[in-house]
């Protein structure tokens, strides 16, 4: 049954299908005739199959061991590590995402608080002048324009030293009646108005951390009241008509008159026209074209100006007691206040009062 090397290689080729042609035919004839060769082929086939099975078994055990190794040890560890990493990453994202939002929110809140006026009231002393640190700051840096007032928000923290310095001055100048006097500010509105502006009776909120040396006021006494623009009152005023040339208003009448009196003498006509012109002039000055509603407003930022939408005028920072006179000239509205003429522009914005300086116009308006 033992075969030589050549036969072994031929059997190998036969079993692997590599034996072809005449060699294959010859081998098949030998196989048919030689029993020992058949036995050798069977043995070799069995051995080859066993070698393959052994190798397959080895590979399977290798795969199983490798897979089990990774399943048993690294996988759970890796999974745990990955899970931990994922949790950390999510937390980091959440923190870094939410932190700026909350910070922004806090900033916004702080800014809103800064924008709103903080009123300070002294408990148990409603009859005294009430001031807030912010009010003092604002009035020291007061500007008439609403726009600038909005931009120029007074940060609380920056105010504190100033308030203290003012208060120190106030303490030193005990002879002064008010803070305004002590710091030498020139307020147009009278002090009595300030008491009206501030709502003393409302229960105030405390401003923590703000120190005040105003009189007996302590940190606990400093209160905040958020205020908005306040309507003080309404009044209806007549609007008088005016013309640069009073004769213009009566031109048509004059033309008719001239046409009807063509036959009158020149002297008579001149005298008659003069008389009519004087009559018209006096009539036009007293002619009321319409009435206009005037609202008196108190701005929280002490803004002085007006808002005129064509039908009503909102006046900011103007005392109700002062007399007003409205004159309309060439569809333009003029306001006479404190013997000064102001032009009121028709728009929805807040405007400053613009004084009329044109002497000719002033002459017409004051007639």
């Amino acid at each position, binding site marked *: *049954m*033992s075969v030589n*090397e050549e036969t*072994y*290689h031929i059997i190998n080729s036969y079993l692997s299908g590599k034996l072809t042609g005449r060699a294959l035919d010859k081998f098949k004839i030998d196989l048919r005739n030689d029993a020992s060769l058949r*036995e050798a082929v*069977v*043995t*070799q086939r*069995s*051995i*080859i*199959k*066993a*070698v*393959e*099975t*052994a*190798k*397959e*078994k*080895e*590979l*399977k055990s*290798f*795969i*199983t061991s*490798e*897979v089990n190794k*990774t399943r048993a040890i*690294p996988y759970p560890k*890796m999974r745990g590590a990955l899970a931990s990493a994922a949790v950390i990453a999510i937390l980091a994202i959440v923190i870094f995402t939410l932190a700026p939002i909350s910070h922004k929110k806090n900033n916004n809140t702080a800014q809103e608080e800064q924008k709103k006026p903080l009123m300070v009231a002294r408990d148990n002393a409603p009859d005294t002048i009430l001031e807030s640190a912010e009010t003092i700051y604002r009035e020291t840096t007061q500007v008439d324009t609403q726009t600038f007032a909005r931009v120029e928000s007074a940060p609380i923290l920056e105010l504190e030293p100033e308030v203290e310095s003012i208060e120190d001055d106030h303490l030193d100048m005990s002879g002064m009646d008010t803070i305004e006097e002590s710091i030498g500010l020139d307020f147009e509105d009278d002090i009595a108005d300030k008491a009206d502006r501030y709502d003393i009776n409302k229960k105030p909120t405390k401003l923590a951390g703000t120190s005040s040396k105003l009189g007996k006021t302590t940190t606990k006494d400093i209160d905040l009241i958020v205020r908005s623009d306040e309507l003080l009152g309404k009044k209806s005023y007549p609007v008088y008509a005016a013309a640069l040339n009073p004769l213009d208003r009566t031109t048509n009448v004059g033309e008719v008159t001239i046409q009807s009196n063509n036959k009158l003498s020149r002297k008579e006509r001149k005298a008659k026209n003069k008389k009519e012109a004087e009559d018209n002039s006096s009539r036009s000055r007293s002619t009321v074209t319409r009435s206009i509603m005037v609202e008196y407003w108190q701005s929280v930022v002490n803004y002085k100006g007006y808002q005129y939408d064509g039908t009503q005028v909102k006046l900011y920072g103007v005392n109700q007691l002062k007399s007003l006179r409205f004159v309309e000239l060439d569809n333009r509205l003029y306001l006479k206040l404190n013997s000064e003429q102001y032009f009121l522009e028709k728009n929805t914005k807040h405007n400053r009062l613009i004084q009329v300086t044109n002497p000719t116009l002033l002459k017409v308006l004051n007639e």
Partner: protein
Amino acid sequence: MFGIGKIADHTVLDNMKQGDEQMLVYLYKQHYTMVKNFVLKNSGDENAVDDILQDTVIAVWKNTNKPNFLLQSKLSTYIMAIAKNLWFKELKKRTKFKLVDEDNHLEHGKDEMHLDMDQNIIVSLVEQMDDNCRRLLSYFYFDGFSTKLIAEKLNYANANTVKSKKYQCFKKLQATVISQYKKEDLL
């Protein structure tokens, strides 16, 4: 080694041709979920998944080293095709077993047992061989490596040395097998 990332198909095949057995593990892991889903959906269980996948990657291994092997699809597609064929074959075998009557089954089982026993004994004899001979024979018969590659792997001088060494190892194994069994056992 293969925890992260994916190795290109041609790299896997090249490595397999060079006898890198780690590629089997890689393919096993890469395709485990796919094969598992398929087998579980087709009346299989977890144990069957392991068996089928092991047979599949070993079949890929053997085919890769055939001289006329040419991969014409994605490796995963090829592997899934093999796995499906193996599983359907297994299912067919299982069904066939159920249809066989008891007598035939017992008789057939007896034959199978006899052949398996013989084969298992030879396998155990192969496993008892010295490492070099065993590796040489498995490289040649199982892996299908060329004699040149075997010479490189086993540090032999050349292909002819491999051929003669192979004959010697085979003769040794054959003598062992014949000494343990009568020739009727092998027929």
